[in-house]
């Protein structure tokens, strides 16, 4: 089998999968990294072809050889990024972002160190291609040694990527494990084939079967990733449609309740006052003292109506939220709640977020408190608000019996939708020794 042709197939697999993933989910970081990996692999391969000419190296030839390594290591760093963010584009766990950034920097720095510090330059790590480096600076020999060592550690980068995938699998929820299973199996297959190739080349047997199989698996691996990314984007679209429908239904319900409160409450009270003023007018002729009593009734009813209206407006959207922020609005709300509810909002007192974020945070806190008081009557409830200009975090914890079975209850589902619509995250945890913690993180500028 022609190995050159065998290389083209996996390259095509990576490029095509990357392009398809980008077309499906252009803003998904996994798709971006997949395409980046494909492009860098192809570029590295072309660069390698151009730099493989034998004979003494010119300066530009040396740069080409080093470029080959830069591009290839960059592709490996992209693969690590893919495996760290698959399938939804979030670095999970967050430290993998730093790992990827370090690898990305090394991909550039290590070959650059070789360019100035190594006496000889290779193509693709093949010792038979070694040629003297015309750009070497003798004083930098140690830098060159370190650079060479890092470049030679290429296979370890891939192992690191697979290791991250395995770590994520081991530390994930069942749902996430289900998503990671396929790429993990692919990575396992690739590793097994790679070991087979190494073993058989050492034993000098059957190389001709293992290598094409490995190349085929290498070509199929990005296709597996593409499959996962597309499934993720479909799932996202379905979730969005469903949550939009729930939000619309919730809004409709809220409108109906406002309409009922206005019509059955305030409007009826006004009617009653209308007839009372008419009555007072008639009484004025024959018994002014009685008219005085009736007018006092009217005044009391007006006060009650004003109070009802104030409560109604606060329920729709408290004015204090827009005027003074989420911490102040929450304190006002608490004034009408039992003493067992306490708030720690000092960290949020002087920060203002966009109005929608503050409203979402406020309603998460209020609904969270309501939920806790409903399911854990008499429990101590604590609301914590904090964050910075980039995000608002709301936590509601109680020391009640726990709400495991309620984590899908409609109250919390409504909150999850609301937080989701701002691109935030919503979590429900059991806390030791007893109690429940809900946490909403509302990022600024991430609206979906």
């Amino acid at each position, binding site marked *: 089998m022609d190995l050159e042709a065998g290389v083209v197939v996996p390259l095509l697999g990576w490029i095509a999968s990357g392009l398809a993933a980008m077309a499906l989910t252009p803003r998904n970081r996994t798709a971006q990294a997949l395409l980046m990996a494909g492009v860098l692999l192809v570029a590295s391969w072309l660069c390698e072809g151009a730099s493989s000419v034998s004979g003494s190296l010119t300066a530009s030839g040396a740069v080409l050889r080093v470029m080959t390594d830069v591009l290839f290591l960059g592709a490996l760093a992209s693969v690590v990024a893919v495996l760290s963010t698959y399938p939804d584009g979030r670095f999970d766990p967050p430290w993998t972002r730093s790992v990827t950034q370090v690898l990305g920097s090394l991909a550039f720095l290590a070959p650059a160190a070789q360019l100035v510090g190594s006496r000889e330059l290779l193509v693709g790590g093949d010792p038979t291609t070694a040629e003297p480096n015309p750009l070497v600076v003798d004083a930098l020999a140690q830098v060159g040694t370190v650079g060479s060592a890092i470049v030679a550690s290429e296979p370890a980068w891939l192992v690191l990527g697979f290791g991250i995938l395995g770590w994520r699998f081991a530390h994930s929820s069942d749902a996430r494990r289900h998503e990671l299973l396929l790429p993990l199996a692919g990575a396992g297959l690739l590793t097994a084939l790679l070991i087979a190739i190494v073993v058989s080349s050492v034993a000098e047997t059957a190389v001709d079967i293992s290598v094409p199989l490995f190349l085929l698996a290498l070509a199929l691996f990005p296709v597996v990733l593409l499959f996962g990314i597309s499934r993720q984007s479909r799932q996202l679209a379905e979730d969005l449609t469903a949550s939009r429908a729930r939000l619309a239904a919730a809004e409709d319900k809220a409108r109906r309740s406002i309409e009922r409160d206005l019509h059955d409450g305030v409007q009826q009270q006004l009617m009653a006052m209308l007839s009372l003023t008419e009555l007072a007018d008639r009484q004025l002729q024959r018994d002014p003292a009685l008219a005085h009593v009736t007018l006092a009734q009217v005044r009391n009813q007006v006060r009650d109506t004003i109070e009802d209206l104030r409560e109604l407006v606060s329920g729709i959207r408290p004015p204090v939220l827009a*005027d003074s922020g989420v911490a102040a609005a929450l304190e006002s709300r608490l004034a009408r709640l039992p003493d067992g509810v*306490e708030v720690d909002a000092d960290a949020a007192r002087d920060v203002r977020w966009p109005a929608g974020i503050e409203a979402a945070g406020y309603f998460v806190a209020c609904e969270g408190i309501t939920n806790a008081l409903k399911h854990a009557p008499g429990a101590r409830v604590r609301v914590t608000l904090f964050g910075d200009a980039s995000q608002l975090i709301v936590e509601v914890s109680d020391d009640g019996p726990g709400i495991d079975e309620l984590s899908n209850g409609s109250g919390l589902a409504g909150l999850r939708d609301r937080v989701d619509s701002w691109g935030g995250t919503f979590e429900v945890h059991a806390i030791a020794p007893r109690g429940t913690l809900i946490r909403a993180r509302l990022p600024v500028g991430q609206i979906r």
Partner: protein
Amino acid sequence: MSTLRVIIAEDNYLVREGVRRLLDDGEDVEVVADAASAPELILRVREHRPDAVLTDIRMPPDQGMDGIEAAVHLRQELRSIGVVVLSQHADAAYARALFRHGTTGLAYLLKERVGDRDELVRALSTVASGGSVVDPRIVDALLSAQQHRVSSPLQSLTPREHDVLREMAAGRTNPAIARELLVSESAVSKHISSIFAKLQLVEDPSVDRRVRAVLAYVTGATPDQPSTP
């Protein structure tokens, strides 16, 4: 009693006219001008130099806390003018915003007090002479907001001391508090000493300065220097 010269600021024509007619209906108050927005209020005040101002909290241009900003501005520009802010909001945050630089010559009343002429006139003459008035509902809100905070010295007060503190902040004298809570005057004095000790405030027999100290405490404002009106 001399006539109190007052300016009214309110953007709703019906409410403005209603309050103007109500206040003008007596020898003790003369409404010298009215205004429909915060900037207009400041112009009218400079023009007429009234004894006191009665302003709505929510007015043009921002329809937010313009009344409060105007009140704070007026108190800084013309120290002798008292300002009564009328608000639809029974929220602690607004009172805290109004009293952020001190409480002298300022009052925060809920807007439904426009139905009670005596109370309005009392508040206007109190602020005109450098005193402070806070609606009892707002005192409740302020105390409650403090109480729900994770660590507030108010939590160390007994329920009875809370009752006394609320009456105190609303400007009641010791005998009035005793009547309201159905306890003896000496019991009230004991409660007050205990409250001031727990909140680390300096005890002061003058009702007005006591109100200011308590308000400064619950709003987080810096206490006023004793002023000479």
